[in-house]
């Protein structure tokens, strides 16, 4: 592992927009030793022993919640899950009251997923515990951005100068925004591609290129990060049909075969096979969709560990210490 000293993240991880290049690279480097822990027979280190963490999921997300929960348990933290359905929230409790109640239970960290952009910041401003954004509305999903970057670095060998295209429903995507901020800060080039109905206004001002046609994007890029196209987007009229979407913007083998180089394929999941991505591509040799999932646990362990006050060198020491 690179022995770079990771700068402190501060109290919370709300988004990659607020982080510096050094902080982002620090998290990625700190993730390296944590990757290995998940490969062991006994997948547990005592780095967060005695810490209590609440996973507050106001919006359903099986995958992200499970990934965080594994990360927390492998660091020996005590965790409680909280889902909006069937909780005090469905009885009309406000976010501010939820925050105060969590605070009153003297928890150390909150991992929050919320349908409203800015909800994690709202929480972070009101409680002393560390707050980690696990996806807020159409704003950011920083740990997803980080795990995408870690996966890109693993497979392309670097981040600086690589060309990444984010394909699909960028308008509603927190994954897209975290990718844009994170990748731009470490010197990667970023483009977005999709029908204009699904591209956010003024997105070029974030320093990204906009491609109207998937063929041009494929020709340009080193990697495609293919976003999930939610079925609701058709009902609300953003696209005429899923079939046409697949025809015009689908990531297919035929399109990839025409590219001048092999493109790495990422997808934050869950996939709609045959809509935004064809199965042969998702299951193909250049797909890193499952390595992304594996890296997700390592990145989240790194973030939890760093926010709890850990240092990147100590993560390495803990790892080797456990081995000896």
């Amino acid at each position, binding site marked *: 592992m690179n022995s770079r000293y990771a700068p402190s993240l501060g109290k919370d991880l709300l988004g990659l927009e607020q982080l510096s290049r050094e902080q982002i690279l620090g998290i990625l480097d700190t993730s390296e030793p944590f990757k290995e822990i998940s490969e062991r027979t006994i997948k547990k280190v005592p780095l967060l022993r005695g810490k209590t963490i609440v996973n507050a999921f106001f919006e359903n997300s099986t995958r992200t919640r499970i990934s965080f929960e594994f990360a927390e348990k492998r660091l020996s933290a005590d965790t409680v899950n909280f889902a909006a359905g069937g909780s005090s929230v469905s009885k009309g409790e406000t976010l501010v009251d939820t925050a105060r109640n969590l605070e009153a239970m003297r928890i150390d960290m909150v991992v929050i997923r919320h349908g409203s*952009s800015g909800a994690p910041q*709202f929480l972070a401003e009101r409680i002393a515990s560390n707050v980690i954004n696990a996806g807020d509305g*159409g704003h*950011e999903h920083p740990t997803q951005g980080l795990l995408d970057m870690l996966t890109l670095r693993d497979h392309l060998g670097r981040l600086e100068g690589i060309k990444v295209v984010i394909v699909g429903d960028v308008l509603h995507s927190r994954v897209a925004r975290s990718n844009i901020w994170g990748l731009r800060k470490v010197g990667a080039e970023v483009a977005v591609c999709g029908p204009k109905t699904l591209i956010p*206004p*003024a997105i070029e001002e974030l320093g990204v290129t906009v491609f109207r046609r998937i063929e041009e994007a494929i020709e340009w890029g080193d990697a495609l990060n293919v976003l999930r196209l939610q079925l609701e987007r058709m009902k609300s009229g953003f696209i005429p049909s899923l079939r046409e979407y697949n025809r015009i913007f689908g990531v297919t083998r035929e399109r990839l075969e025409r590219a001048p180089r092999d493109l790495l394929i990422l997808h934050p999941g869950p996939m709609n096979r045959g809509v935004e991505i064809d199965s042969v591509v998702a299951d193909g040799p250049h797909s890193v969709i499952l390595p992304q999932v594996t890296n997700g646990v390592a990145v989240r362990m790194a973030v939890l560990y760093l926010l709890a006050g850990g240092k990147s060198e100590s993560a390495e020491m803990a790892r080797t210490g456990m081995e000896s």
Partner: protein
Amino acid sequence: MKPIVIRGGRVIDPSRRVDGKLDVLIAEGRIVGLGESLDSTDADVIDASGLIVAPGLIDLHVHLREPGFEHKETIRTGSASAVAGGFTTVVAMPNTDPPIDNSATVGFVLAEGRRVGLARVLPSGAITVGQKGEQLAEFGEMVKAGAVTVTDDGKPVTRASVMRLALEYAQTFDIPVSVHAEDHDLSRGGVMNEGITATRLGLTGIPNAAEDVMIARDLQLAELTGGRLHIQHVSTRRGVEMIREARARGIRVSAEATPHHFTLTDEAVVSYGTDAKMNPPLRSEADRDAVIQGVIDGTLDVIATDHAPHHYDEKEQAFDDAPFGIVGLETALGLALTELVHRKRIDLPTLIERMSCAPARAFGLPGGTLGEGSLADVTIFDPDVEWLVQPEDFLSLSRNTPFAGWRLKGRPVATLVGGRVVWSATKS
């Protein structure tokens, strides 16, 4: 009641082209006359030296929330807030619960305003029954009960045919139809201005076009019908242009600029501050510039606050969930002086024209003048005193302002309604 002499102030009354160091004599609730060194024997004297004496400020656009939302504001607290902001007359919007869409509710608002006895509270009535956009409300009955305009504020009339009928029918009573110009279909789900800030924050934007298409529609309908149109809180550059052009063509239109739209841009939302969430939203710098230009050249002839109080619990939410609106009565004059007069965009007479004379003319209200025999509604203010905006000092029941902690230059000193001092800085 003893006569009052307001002594030694700079009296500015654009309605009569008066601007000079004069005394104002008031008796029996009316202006008796202006003059130099008036005799003040047997009169109460208000020393206004170093201050501006103006016809009382009039706000054509406030939400007093009563009946139905008394946890946000009442006619009593809203009236107190108004006079503390230098306003002698306010026009109350009808989006209450129940909505003000009949003569009984109009009568209630008027009576409650009189009972409170601070600012003159003039009700507006809804354009349609229940603000549902279908059947016209009884304009005639409401006007007879005291309504001064009809408006769909907050719930724009979707159907052009209904708006046409409203603009035609209102002419019987010679009242303006006031519109919140927004195509709700185009702005659906939007919570702030569409643009890079909304994109960064992951919030759904409201495009300028949502306002522009309705301004265009309603100007065309005003031209078609010859009706009087009043466009509320204009926030877009294209909106200002269209109104300027319509006015030049002789269409009968008046229009508002709010202090927040001429002071702030959508960057004020940048950390999800719900006190910068209002509708129409704060726009871009180019839009803000256009609104200022509109105030300068009189395209936007009226400055109005869109005072929209909300309980702190309601604003203490995620941005998507918080309601639109900010309070404005107690910061309006300070903001207008600071942003427009002290930055040399307009002079003091123009400011008073926009905040008193033009609003009176637009709705045909008494006031807006210090002419002999007119109502003694007078605002005395210090244009130069610096002060800190401290929402906890507001007389409004609500505190939702994006201007907390701002230093402003200029504020009211005393407010007279009907010859009575209803508020003064020294007493509060």
